[in-house]
């Protein structure tokens, strides 16, 4: 059965991902630093797991979702980065397939 949430209690890894999504959305200076050099920006967050850092660097929406990014934060993040709606929805569908078929 499909659940509304992947994590009943957020993991530390999800927290670290969400912290970045939240800051880039709510702090104009953070947003500027991110846009200037995304890789360097993400590299500063040494608490991130390698898989989370890689997903953020490549804006891998499906992976971020599967790692526990809050869907509302990830939605707004994709709007902010102007990810085309079609690509965003397709990435989520791919994440759903992965959940279903492993």
């Amino acid at each position: 059965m499909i659940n509304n949430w992947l994590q009943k209690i957020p993991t530390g890894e999800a927290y670290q991902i969400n912290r970045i999504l939240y800051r880039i959305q709510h702090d104009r200076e953070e947003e500027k630093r991110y846009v200037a050099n995304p890789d360097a920006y993400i590299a500063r967050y040494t608490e991130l797991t390698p898989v989370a850092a890689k997903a953020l660097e490549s804006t891998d929406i499906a992976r971020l979702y599967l790692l526990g990014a809050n869907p509302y934060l990830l939605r707004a993040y994709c709007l902010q980065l102007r990810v085309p709606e079609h690509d965003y929805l397709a990435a989520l569908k791919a994440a759903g397939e992965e959940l279903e078929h492993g």
Partner: protein
Amino acid sequence: MAEIVGTFAVSHTPVMTNLPHAPAGLVSDSVFDAFRRIGERIAHLEPDALVVVSNDHLHNFFLGNMPAFCIGISERYEGPVEDWLKVERKTVPGARELSAHVLQYCLDNGFDPSFSLDLVLDHGMVTPLTLAGVLGRFPIAPVLVNCVQPPLPRMARCMELGKVIGRAIRSFDGASRVVVLATGGIAHDVGTPRMGFVNEAFDRRFLALLGDSDISRLCEYSEAEVNTAGNGAEEIRNWLVAHGIADSRGFELHHYAPVTEWYTGIALGSWRAA
């Protein structure tokens, strides 16, 4: 003592203001008409204050500190926080004395909400109040319920909170007429693989149960079936708070449409004043 002269609940999806023309004209027009009519009814009731029950969408709160319930106790609020909402940012008056009374009453009567003097409004309040044409017209007392980041408060607990808030409002002697507006839901997914699917059957059953007198069945159904209706459907908690405030009596549905172009089951309803 204050009287609750009206209790209303409506959906609040932001796409109604940032993508207003996504659905066919007849569909969106009838939704916008339903919002306008609710706004007219609220204005006609001439409230001294508007208690707005909604949820933050991770603008005020974050995983660093996530309250299950929070009551805003400011003299004014600004919003919307979202630049992309296509609604002009403005400052609206807060019903501080009523909020403070409700907060204290909750703490004295078995609930421990957090409070905030620094809430920014997001689409959860701004979109429906704008569509109803009453944003900033009446001082607001915001009540926020965590519907967006698990673990979430239980459905029955939200209804119980509503009962206490209802008693709090009725024991407030600083106003005579109070209107309640809950916002959110109903069926929709935000940012999940199921986004775009609207579980109309869930919505119709939930709305029917609101009109029924059996509150335990309503809460049990909500808790058990919300996972079939999407993470956005978790916002029915706000409707359950309103149901509790209205003493679980006299629900009437004004409008319902499953609007896939807005990803959401859009509903508007009210409870008859006791």
